[in-house]
């Protein structure tokens, strides 16, 4: 589904990702771990198409297409979803309006008729239950005045609404208490299917107790330095990132 080969990425002439390769197949959950500032969020943003990052070499193939040539919204319509680490507030735009626009633009891209209001509202109701999101949140402006936990739940809710084929969750667990963490994890698990995949970016092993990954990668200084099964996360938790630096030098 996703194939990244020898990716190099710079921002303001500073190289952040230095030769990263990654293969993600349908049905898989990949976890990417690593210390701060090693390029995890950059990788997520590059896959989503954030323009400030400059891909200096390498390629990203997604569903047999060159992802780097696609516009941000085209990638989204092709099923790439980024759960933001810091979801932005959009004053005055209600969640309902925002989601309806997104759903129907993506349907239009796929040549489908837009959902009617009642179909859309029914869909919202169904998905709200899935992530245990309160109705009042969807009547408010996008992320405005949401608590940290509400923002993250809102990202999972949007993911449920848009049913992506490749979802990248950028530190969705940070700042969550254990209950919210479970809600987020349950949401993800409910959406797992043989034809979609997840990349879960996290600092801590904690989330991986609830979302069990098939593959764990360790990102360090812009490269994947270690890949293993879910036990790698435990090992990392135990030994800390210092262990990596030692083994890497």
């Amino acid at each position, binding site marked *: 589904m996703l194939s990244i080969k020898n990716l190099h990425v710079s921002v303001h002439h500073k190289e952040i990702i230095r030769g990263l390769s990654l293969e993600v197949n349908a049905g898989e959950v990949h976890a990417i771990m690593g210390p701060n500032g090693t390029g995890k969020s950059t990788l997520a943003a590059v896959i989503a198409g954030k323009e400030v990052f400059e891909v200096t070499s390498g390629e990203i193939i997604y569903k047999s297409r060159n992802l780097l040539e696609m*516009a941000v919204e085209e990638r989204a319509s092709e099923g790439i979803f980024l759960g933001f680490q810091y979801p932005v507030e959009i004053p005055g735009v209600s969640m309902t309006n*925002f*989601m309806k626009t997104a759903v129907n633009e993506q349907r239009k891209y796929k040549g489908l008729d837009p959902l009617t209001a009642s179909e859309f509202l029914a869909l919202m109701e169904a998905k709200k239950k899935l992530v245990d999101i309160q109705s009042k949140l969807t009547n408010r402006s996008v992320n405005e005045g949401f608590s940290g936990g509400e923002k993250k739940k809102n990202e999972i809710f949007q993911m449920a609404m848009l049913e992506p084929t490749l979802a990248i969750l950028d530190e969705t667990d940070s700042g969550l208490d254990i209950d919210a963490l479970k809600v987020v994890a349950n949401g993800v698990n409910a959406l797992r299917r043989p034809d979609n995949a997840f990349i879960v970016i996290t600092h801590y092993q904690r989330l991986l107790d609830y979302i069990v990954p098939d593959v764990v990668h360790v990102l360090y200084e812009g490269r994947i330095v270690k890949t293993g099964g879910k036990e790698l996360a435990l090992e990392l938790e135990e030994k800390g990132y210092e262990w990596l630096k030692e083994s890497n030098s």
Partner: protein
Amino acid sequence: MPSYLIREHQVEKEQHDILSEVTSGDYKYGFVTDIEMETAPKGLNEDIIRFISSKKNEPAWMLEYRLKSYRKWLEMTPPGWAHLKINDIDYQDIIYYAAPKPKKELQSLDEVDPELLRTFEKLGISLEEQKRLSGVAVDAVIDSVSVKTTFSETLAGLGIIFCSFSEAVQKHPELVKQYMGMAVPYGDNYFAALNSAVFSDGSFCYIPKGVRCPIELSTYFRINAAGTGQFERTLIVADEGSYVSYMEGCTAPMRDENQLHAAVVEILAMKDAEVKYSTVQNWYPGNKKGEGGIYNFVTKRGICKGNNSKISWTQVETGSAITWKYPSVVLLGDHTTGEFYSVAVTNHHQQADTGTKMIHLGKHTKSTIISKGISAGLSNNSYRGLVRMGKKAEQSRNFSQCDSLLLGDQCGAHTFPYIKVENKSSIVEHEATTSKISDEQLFYCMQRGIGTESAIGLIVNGYAKEVLNKLPMEFAVEAQKLLSVSLEGSVG
């Protein structure tokens, strides 16, 4: 409609009517209606004014008022202080009177020129449908002449007078004589003087004591004929304890010449009365090269005469090549309230210099100004507003929030507040910010699959939400669409 109902409707509306239908960026209302017109010869002089007055069968005092205004106008010069570049206007090259022909008393909709009715259907305001479904009383003014006022009979039952200005001059001369020129004197400014001399029609509305007008009153203005100016005049008098909500919409065909629209709107609110005046202004803005378009030079002013009265202006300005407009409130009575909510969008070569004046004269008066300017393309968009607290306006308050949003680096956004305070117990607060549309917000929308233009439409509508919420429901959805359409082609 009671305001709580409107609010509920809006929430519902929002879930049902989202901006998806907007697909074409062209000016949708740019057709010309082929109706037989009766016009005056080009140019302006006392004979033309006499011609207009006699066409309308006016009493002598009205002709005198026109002539007095004309003579005053001759002594005046156009205002030069606005942040606008205006080509010289040749006032002798304008037709000051154009009316659909034949003009006779219309008794029912069946008698209206079918071509004209089709025009209104294209505008989305089928009079018949409006009448049946929405319960909105519509007065339609086409090229200066009021064509049909629906619902008058129903309103008459409540003692409400809602008719064309010409009709009011004939049937209620005492009211017109008493109130006309009270809020906007004939010599108030260059364009008001011109209007007072040559105004051809408009709407008149009188709400008697203690009556809450049960439906929205509405006027649609359209300039149709070439080479004409439109000079309509609206007068709203809300007697003690009454309430009315009034809406105004405007469109014009696409022509490559500039056409002049110099209107006057006057509102008088007596003790405990409330008037809400909403405008969606969508005159033809000219083409992408800046050719053609309407010069919209409008004087709107209300006086809160009686204690506890309230006047509220809401405007969505997306059209016109040049907008020069400052809907104002004179807070004369004690405990009166003035409000101004505005969204002004400029794109391509459009220019807008718009804002308000809040003149506090009574004690414990209160005013609120919320202005949202959005500039794109090569346009210039200015907020200009005066807040004045007179010596006797004890314990009065004003709050102003004037924000500007820039789309692109070739446009300008300007804020020109004027604050004058002459007593120690009043409080005036003004805040303004200018920024561009946030890259983070755009990216967030696009990551969810929303294209650039829709994303901008969405964000801009959110930005303007505070003002759009003030519009009657009938207007809110139209205004939202207009905002998005006006900005198409502005980015990318």
